[in-house]
């Protein structure tokens, strides 16, 4: 056996040993005491210290939790429809999920990333990527609602995303799966000649937050996995890990694990801007959608776009360098100073840490060890700052506490390992329950981390909570990192897969939250501003009901003259201008969803009655003591009945 297969055998043994340990010993770790409890106890009526945005992974949503309590405040629908409030179902919101593949009602949402100013989370927006149908969403942090989703063309899956540059100049995307670009019908075995990757830079308007794809870079067909942008001295560069430098197209488990080293791609995006200014970019025909919520109508505007600027590395010397990195690296994380770039080689036994200044020197002195498609590969030893050994099995991601330490998650050995920047020594380790993926320190990927806690985001819970059948919740663990030793404080189940999280001090967000939408600013064409404007109109087979809600009634609440075969549009405006008084709307036999309408907002639900009869509708959000009375009837007659439209 060669050395590589030895290593692999070792890992398989380790995994087997872990399964045996977890499955058979029955000795579950129970930790904690009253002192620990007091550190996470947020007394009734008190506020948490941090907002934590935890992605929902396969549920396509973003959850908002409080830290240190671990209490769930909200689930923000992003890439998945939400029948609970009508997101993705109402006429105003359904286009948010429009793509070149049509309407996509779900996705796999991985990485929340807070917008930054000068390398520090600023609380303007949080971005999140869709891994499956490549997209990036922007959520506003005063409304906590999805305001924009942009599709990424020329991508087979958007995983290395949406990590921002230091001042949110760009949100980053990259294709995890290389594909024929442009797409074409070719044999899969022609991978090496036909498949390419893209690295995408999305420009963000600093005022409105609107996103626009600035350019893409066409790169060799590897799997681009994660990214992070430089800060301080390395501002202007973005780093991407890639695996499958073997360019295998089948059984990647084995075939993409052959090379001793894969790469971190270092991209000089300031140089890219220069090349674009010089006209080096090619316009490539593509098709993708950019959907955003108009502020006045609170209705989604969907724009189809047909072209993207593409840079080819061979034509742009100095644009990209490959940094050799051991064994299928996963995470790539830049320390707060901007000098060190840690890569988690998920099959490696060490964490390599590259030095940005050494990288610049190696480029200057042309210390190259090879070249891939015109992209120079730098010499590993010339750029290495150090290697963290004894770092646990399967190191994945690293975050920083701003006090000189780094924390790396190790999936296989299910632990967090704390190490010192500069000496590369491991100084502490703590188990996680079980199989940690990402970890999150508030501001932990920024220039100024609030290094008080780290949250472990785990893939398995097994025996941690009361059993609930085969499908179990995933979990997060809150660990105190304020002292020398890490200390487990809290273990809480999460919604969906807590893939990654970012946290921000509560005081940055809590005072700027939106309480109501001002009725006077509502420019939705179907809005009514007072009950006097209520009406029902027929346009052929469409019936438009202009309805209002206010405590505690609908106006109108009796509608007659609808016929079987009509499509009824309930345009409902919530006239309330009071915080926490949404009204709901539900009608019997609705094939889509219910609506929750926020104060001052207009939402539209369609309903297609199939049989004559009189059908009730009612409010689903408990709005006042007379909420049960908030109801009405709509009468449906035969197609040929001579009943005119009327309402009260």
């Amino acid at each position, binding site marked *: 056996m060669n050395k590589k297969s030895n290593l692999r055998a070792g890992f398989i043994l380790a995994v087997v040993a872990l399964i045996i340990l977890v499955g058979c010993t029955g000795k579950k770790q129970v930790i904690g005491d009253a002192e620990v409890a007091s550190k996470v106890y947020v007394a009734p009526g008190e506020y948490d210290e941090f907002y934590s945005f935890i992605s929902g992974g396969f549920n396509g949503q973003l959850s908002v939790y409080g830290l240190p309590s671990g209490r769930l405040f909200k689930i923000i629908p992003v890439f998945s429809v939400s029948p609970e409030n009508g997101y993705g179902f109402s006429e105003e919101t359904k286009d948010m999920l429009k793509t070149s593949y049509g309407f996509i009602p779900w996705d796999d949402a991985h990485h929340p990333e807070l917008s930054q100013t000068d390398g520090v989370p600023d609380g303007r927006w949080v971005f999140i990527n869709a891994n499956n149908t490549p997209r990036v969403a922007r959520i506003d942090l005063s409304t906590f609602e999805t305001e924009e989703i942009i599709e990424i063309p020329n991508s087979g899956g958007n995983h290395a995303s949406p990590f921002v540059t230091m001042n949110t100049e760009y949100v980053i995307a990259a294709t995890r799966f290389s594909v024929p670009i442009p797409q074409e019908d070719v044999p899969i075995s022609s991978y090496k000649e036909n498949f390419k990757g893209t690295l995408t830079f999305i420009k963000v308007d600093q005022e409105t937050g609107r996103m626009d794809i600035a350019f893409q870079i066409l790169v060799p067909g590897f799997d681009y996995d994660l990214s992070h942008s430089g800060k301080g001295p390395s501002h202007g560069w973005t780093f991407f890990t890639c695996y499958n430098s073997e360019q295998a197209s089948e059984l990647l488990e084995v075939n993409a694990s052959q090379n001793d080293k894969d790469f971190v791609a270092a991209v000089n995006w300031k140089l890219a801007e220069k090349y674009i200014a010089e006209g080096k970019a090619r316009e490539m025909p593509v098709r993708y959608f950019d959907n955003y919520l108009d502020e006045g109508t609170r209705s989604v505007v969907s724009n189809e776009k047909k072209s993207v600027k593409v840079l080819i590395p061979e034509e742009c010397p100095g644009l990209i360098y490959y940094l050799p990195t051991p064994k299928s690296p996963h995470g790539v994380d830049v320390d707060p100073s901007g000098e060190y770039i840690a890569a988690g080689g998920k099959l490696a036994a060490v964490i390599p840490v590259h030095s940005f200044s050494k990288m610049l020197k190696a480029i200057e002195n042309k210390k190259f060890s090879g070249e891939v498609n015109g992209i120079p590969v730098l010499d590993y030893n010339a750029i290495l700052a150090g290697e963290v050994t004894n770092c646990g099995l399967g190191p994945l991601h690293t975050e920083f506490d701003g006090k000189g330490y780094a924390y790396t998650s190790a999936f296989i050995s299910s632990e967090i390992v704390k190490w010192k920047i500069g000496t590369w020594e491991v100084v502490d380790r703590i188990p996680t329950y079980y199989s940690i993926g990402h970890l999150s320190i508030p501001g932990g990927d920024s220039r100024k981390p609030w290094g008080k806690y780290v949250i472990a985001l785990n893939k398995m819970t097994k025996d941690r909570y009361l059993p609930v059948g085969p499908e179990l919740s995933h979990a997060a663990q809150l660990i105190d990192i304020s002292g020398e030793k890490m200390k487990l404080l809290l273990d809480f189940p999460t919604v969906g897969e807590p893939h990654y999280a970012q946290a921000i001090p509560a005081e940055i967000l809590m005072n700027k939250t939106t309480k*109501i939408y001002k009725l006077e600013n509502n420019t939705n064409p179907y809005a009514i501003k007072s009950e006097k404007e209520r009406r029902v109109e027929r346009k052929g087979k469409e019936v438009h009901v202009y309805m209002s809600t*206010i*405590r*505690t009634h609908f106006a109108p609440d009796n509608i007659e003259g609808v016929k079987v075969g009509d499509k009824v549009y309930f345009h409902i405006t919530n006239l*309330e*201008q*009071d*915080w926490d008084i949404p009204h709901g709307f539900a009608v019997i036999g609705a094939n889509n969803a219910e609506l929750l309408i926020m104060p001052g907002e207009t939402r539209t639900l369609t309903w297609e009655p199939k049989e004559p009869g009189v059908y009730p509708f009612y409010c689903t959000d408990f709005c*006042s*003591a*007379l909420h049960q009375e908030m109801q009405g009837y709509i009468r449906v007659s035969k197609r040929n009945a001579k009943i005119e439209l009327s309402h009260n």
Partner: protein
Amino acid sequence: MNKVSKTILIIASLLLLLMYVFPVWSITLEAPQYPEGLGMYIWINDITGHNPNDLNNINLVNHYIGMKDIDPQSFPEFKIIPYVVFFIIAFGLFTAIKGGNKMLLVWIGVFVVLALIGLYDFYQWNYDYGHNLDIEKAAIKIPNMTYQPPLFGRKTILNFTAYSFPALGGIAAFVSILLGMVSYYIEAKKSR
């Protein structure tokens, strides 16, 4: 008038200018559903909410008991009070410059009487809103229950606790009367 009492009276008169820029009275309503409170300010010429939508929301909540809408347009007093306050200021300043002790006493007397009329009028409106309910349209009907807010202080009305206190403009008026009395006292002592 001597210099000290004259100065005090001028201050007392000018203090009333605050009534044009600050509300006279404030009523706050707290309930389990409104921990942050709903409230209204009563000005010499208007009623406004503590926050932009408070007045609407107070009316919304009040419709359940059949109380009529609080509409600033429906108070004829608001057209008169600004002139009344102006009259008191002008009269005070005139007294300070030209008048003597007797005129000052008249000023205090007129001011106190007008203030009492104002308070009585305020009480009457509170009584009217609290008692004259549209029982037909009220969802919540409790026999013998009235919803009159307190003239001054705190009162529990169903799930609401109502607080009624003078605001800065009202406090200014009160201090102005007191200063007028101080001025009279000094003047009376000197001329004895």
